[in-house]
Each structure stands twice: as structure tokens, then as C-alpha cells.
């Protein structure tokens, strides 16, 4: 499907793209500056609100849109159940390569033993306009998993900042339609060259590296490593790492009852193995009572169990869990120490 040839979108015409998306989709999301120097994906009301070209946002945008933090599975009234699928068309602009790759991992988790209908009803109505990274920070390590800074698939449109214009690549039929509607001119060879130069430039700035050779084996042998005890003392159990991780998929299910005591909803909400209650069983038992066991689970899930479960590591190197951890726990550093290098 992917088309090697590209198109050109002048930066000053970028608002046209957003306006078009606003027409084509029910909702448009994009990165906004929520605080000085802090970016997060929010619903876009006006084209000017979108801020491209910044580093990773606080929360993982695609997970948040496709698997909302609070999601109603069904409504009930007495014993009767009513299901409502959300099939709004959503366009999401300016997603980074690591996040698109994160979504691909989530796809796996949610089609494990049968597809999740709620997830896929949103997922199949998503228009992804991704943006290759032209900037990275100290905690990005996507190159270790080959999940960035350049995206190869999983997008409808892919933009790269090449100066005062964007190179736009098409990744799907939907993407092609958008390009046609915008009537974009074709890119020239030097535009493609410029893209490569810029991406290589960014690659050079990504210094954080996780050695993935033998990583799974190393992690398998690490279950009784003293490092977990040490981390258990530092870790706050706040769960920030898993909330901001684009691939963490766990959830809690429960009911909300209305005052009439008959009607209500069954919902699911993001959960995390970092929380004590997550692993609680009847009569106060808990299979990960110690914080050390919980952080061991989090890191091993990403760098070890995922491989067994879904054939790939569960991390895309976005660096969010490192950036946001109040206790400065760094998954790369942990793996490095366990590997003894």
C-alpha cells in the first residue's frame, strides 16, 4: 500500500489539512500546549491550536482515544442490557512514530483470544496523520526498538518537517483521498533527500540505548536479582509509568449503579500492576504484595513476557515512563544494570 512518492504541504497551508480533517471526521485531536513547554493531545477546535514538531506528549494519544480511560461497556436496566459502540470517526494529527508503533502493539493485546469489539470499533474509524520526529530528548530511545524516529507503516498520512514545508507521504487509501482533496503537489527528489538528512540528524541525537540483544534471556534470569528489592524501596507505586505507557493495556471492570438501584453501567477503566489492589484476591490474599514484585512485573512484562505473549517487546522506547517517574526509575538503566553492562 505504502507509496514511496510524496507530496508537499506548505506550512502556511497546514491549517487547510486540519480544516479538511474537521470536515471528514467527527473529532480531530492534536498536540496542544497545555502548559508552558508541555504538550498533550486534546480535541482541536481551531486549526491554530495544533502544535507540531514538539517532543513526546504527557499521555499516549492513541491509547487514550482508542481505549479511553473510562469506557462504558454496556448500560443495564433491571436485567436488560444495552450496548452502544462508539463508531465516531476520529482524526488524530501529529502522532509520533513511537505512538503509532505503540498502537500496533495495543492492537495485538486487544485481538488476543478474540477481538475486543469496543476497541476495534474505534480503531477501525481512526485517521492517523503521523509526524516523523525532527527532535528528540534525553529520554527517547526508540532507535533501540526501531520504532522511530521514522515511521514505516501504520499511518494514513505521514508528515516530515523539511524546513518551511512538510513532506507528506501516503499510507492508505484514506490518506490518498485526503491528499487528492487537498490537491497537493508532488514532492521532488531533493525533498525526499531532505527528509532523510533530517531524520538521520535526529537519530544522531538519540543517545539513550537499550541493548535488545539477549534482552529477553537476561530478563528471564533476573527474577531474583537484588535490584528489585532496591527498586521496591524507591518506587512510589503511583502507577504513573503504566498510565503514560502507550502499550499498557490492563483494565479494571466494575459497575456503577444509579439511584433507582436498577439501572446503571458496567465500565472499564485503566488499571496498573503497580497498584496494590490490582493483584488482590479473595480474603486479603495478594500475589504481588511487595512493591518489588510489582515493579518486577511491570519491567518484565515489557521486556520479557510480551515476547512470549505477542512475539515482540512491549516497549516502543517513547521514554514517557522515565520522564514522568517522580522516583527517577529508568527502565533502560534497570535493564542495563541487570545485563551487567
Amino acid at each position, binding site marked *: 500500500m505504502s507509496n514511496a512518492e510524496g507530496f508537499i504541504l506548505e506550512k502556511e497551508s497546514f491549517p487547510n489539512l486540519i480544516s479538511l480533517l474537521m470536515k471528514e471526521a467527527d473529532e480531530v485531536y492534536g498536540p496542544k500546549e497545555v502548559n508552558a513547554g508541555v504538550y498533550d493531545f486534546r480535541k482541536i477546535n481551531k486549526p491554530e491550536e495544533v502544535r507540531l514538531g514538539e517532543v513526546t506528549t504527557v499521555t499516549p494519544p492513541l491509547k487514550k482515544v482508542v481505549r479511553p480511560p473510562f469506557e462504558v461497556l454496556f448500560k443495564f436496566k433491571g436485567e436488560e442490557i444495552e450496548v452502544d459502540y462508539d463508531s465516531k470517526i476520529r482524526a488524530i494529527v501529529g502522532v509520533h512514530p513511537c505512538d503509532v508503533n505503540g498502537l500496533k502493539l495495543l492492537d495485538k493485546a486487544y485481538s*488476543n*483470544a478474540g477481538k475486543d469489539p469496543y476497541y476495534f470499533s474505534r480503531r477501525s474509524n481512526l485517521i492517523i496523520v503521523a509526524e516523523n520526529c525532527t527532535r528528540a530528548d534525553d529520554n527517547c530511545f526508540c532507535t533501540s526498538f526501531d520504532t522511530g524516529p521514522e515511521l514505516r507503516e501504520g499511518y494514513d498520512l505521514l508528515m516530515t518537517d523539511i524546513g518551511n514545508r512538510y513532506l507528506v507521504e501516503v499510507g492508505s487509501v484514506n490518506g490518498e483521498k485526503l491528499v487528492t482533496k487537498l490537491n497537493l503537489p508532488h514532492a521532488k527528489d531533493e525533498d525526499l533527500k531532505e527528509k532523510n538528512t533530517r531524520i538521520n540528524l535526529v537519530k544522531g541525537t538519540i543517545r539513550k540505548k537499550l541493548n535488545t540483544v539477549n534482552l529477553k534471556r537476561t530478563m528471564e534470569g533476573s527474577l531474583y536479582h537484588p535490584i528489585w528489592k532496591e527498586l521496591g524501596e524507591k518506587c512510589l507505586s503511583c502507577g504513573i509509568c503504566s498510565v503514560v505507557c502507550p502499550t499498557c493495556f490492563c483494565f479494571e471492570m466494575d*459497575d456503577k449503579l444509579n439511584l433507582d438501584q436498577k439501572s446503571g453501567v*458496567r465500565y472499564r477503566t485503566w488499571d496498573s500492576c503497580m497498584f496494590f489492589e490490582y*493483584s488482590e484476591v*479473595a480474603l486479603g490474599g495478594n500475589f504481588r504484595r511487595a512493591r518489588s514484585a510489582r515493579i518486577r512485573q511491570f519491567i518484565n512484562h515489557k521486556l520479557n513476557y510480551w515476547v512470549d505473549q505477542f512475539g515482540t517487546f512491549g516497549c516502543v522506547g517513547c521514554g514517557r515512563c522515565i520522564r514522568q517517574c517522580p522516583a527517577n526509575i529508568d527502565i533502560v538503566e534497570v535493564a542495563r544494570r541487570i545485563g551487567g553492562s
Partner: protein
Amino acid sequence: MEAIKNQYIPKKIKIIEVKEETKDVKTFKFQFLSQEENRFNFKPGNFNLLSKLGAGEAAFSLTSDSEEGNYFENTIRKVGRVTSTIFNMKVGDILGFRGPFGNGWPLSKAVGMDLVLIAGGLGLAPLRPVIYHISKHRSFYGSVDILYGARTPMDMIYTNEFKLWQEIPDVKLELTVDVVPNGVSWKHNVGVVTTLFKNIRAKPDSSVVMMCGPEIMMKFASELLLRMEFPKENVYVSLERRMRCGVTKCGHCQIGPKFVCRDGPVFSLAEIWPLPDVIE
């Protein structure tokens, strides 16, 4: 959107019988509201989720005869929100059902071998379908030892079925309790379940062990069985983990890379021992 089966929607069932087992355990017999669903079959060792809309959902072992198409049973201990709510329900009340889930006991692998069933407390519940199965297909298996332990005689479930079980040819039922309260008569063993192991008739190299009970009990029992030279591959345990979705999405039930709801709840020690995370 192409139609994806929604595995989160419970089916309606109604309570057709309630039996009190102990002070805080009851066995509920259910039937589906829609008749065609009553043909449903499960494998011994499977479990299901029960919903009371408004109170939530929880996992329970299927405890009835797996070949009985007209009804099924769950044996429920009152421990929290969902279970207390169900505990107060009566014949005719409606609940929600999802399942059956899980892999079940390795009954076909056990054909021609001796069987050892080890249960602690409520852990007898998932083994009851195995006993039904044995009684119907007695010739498939060698000797059967059932070792059952509970805290006190009053905590034992299915007590009025013990006699029937003992009447099955070549089935030996051994009972033990931790404590015998004053004034209670008890003719059987006193001590933890491993104190019964000396009575096991099965030969380690040609038998399958199926075990369910508190994890700490299973830990000691497993260690002893391994010392008695039962091979890891033939010792099976049924594990309890927190469970929400039942369909490998919610993540709660993971043990290492395994999802208890799909890859379990029955595991051989070879697959999972030593457990990375034990219920404490």
C-alpha cells in the same frame, strides 16, 4: 464494522436451587433462561463469570457434572461485594453468566493412569466435575486417591456426597482437618493435607496429580510431591488470580507470560514452577 463477538455481555441465567454447604459457602444450581443455551458443555476445571448487574462480576469454578446439559452449578464462598450479593439471592432470581473459560484438567492425558486429587477447603469445587467424570468413565483410569483437607469439619463442602464417592470402585477418599473444635466428633485424620501423602497409592511414574487449594498449601504439597518423585509434568494445580474480563484483555490474571483465564487456571508444575508471584 464487521461483527465482532462481544465477549463482555453476560447471558441470563436463573437460580433453580440453593444448597447450604457451610456457614459461608453455598452451592447454586443455575439454568439458562433461553432453552437452547442449556445444551452447554464444559470441561472439568473450567470456570465461568457470574454477574449481578450493579454489584459486578466474579469468577467461579464450574462444579457440576460437565456432561449434564440441563443445568450447572457454582459453589460460592461469601468474601466480598459480588459474593455477598449473590449469597442473598434465592431461587428464581436472575444472574448473568459468561464462559466457560479456561483449559480444564488434563483428563485425556490421564487416561490409563492413576489419579491423585488433592484439595484444600473450597479447592474441592473445581475437582468435583472430575469425580463426576470418573464415576461415569471409571474404566478409563487406574486407582483414584482423593485427599481432602479443610480447617475444621464444619468447613468441609459436599459432605453428603462423600459416601457416593467412596462407593465408586477403587476410589479412596481421605479426609483431614487442621483443628477439631471442642464437642465435635471426628473420626478421620488431623493435620495438614500433606500428612495424608503417605497413604497415596498411586505410583509416581504413572499417575497424574490434580490439586487445588490455598496457594501456600499447594506450594508445600508440590514440594513434597516432587520429593516423592512425581514428575513436574504430571502434577497439575489450579490457580486463582484476580480476574476481570475472562478473555485475556484486562491483564489481571497474568503469571509471567501466562494468562490464567486462557492458559490456565490449570497448569502443570513444569510450566510455572517456581511461581514468580505467590499469593500471600
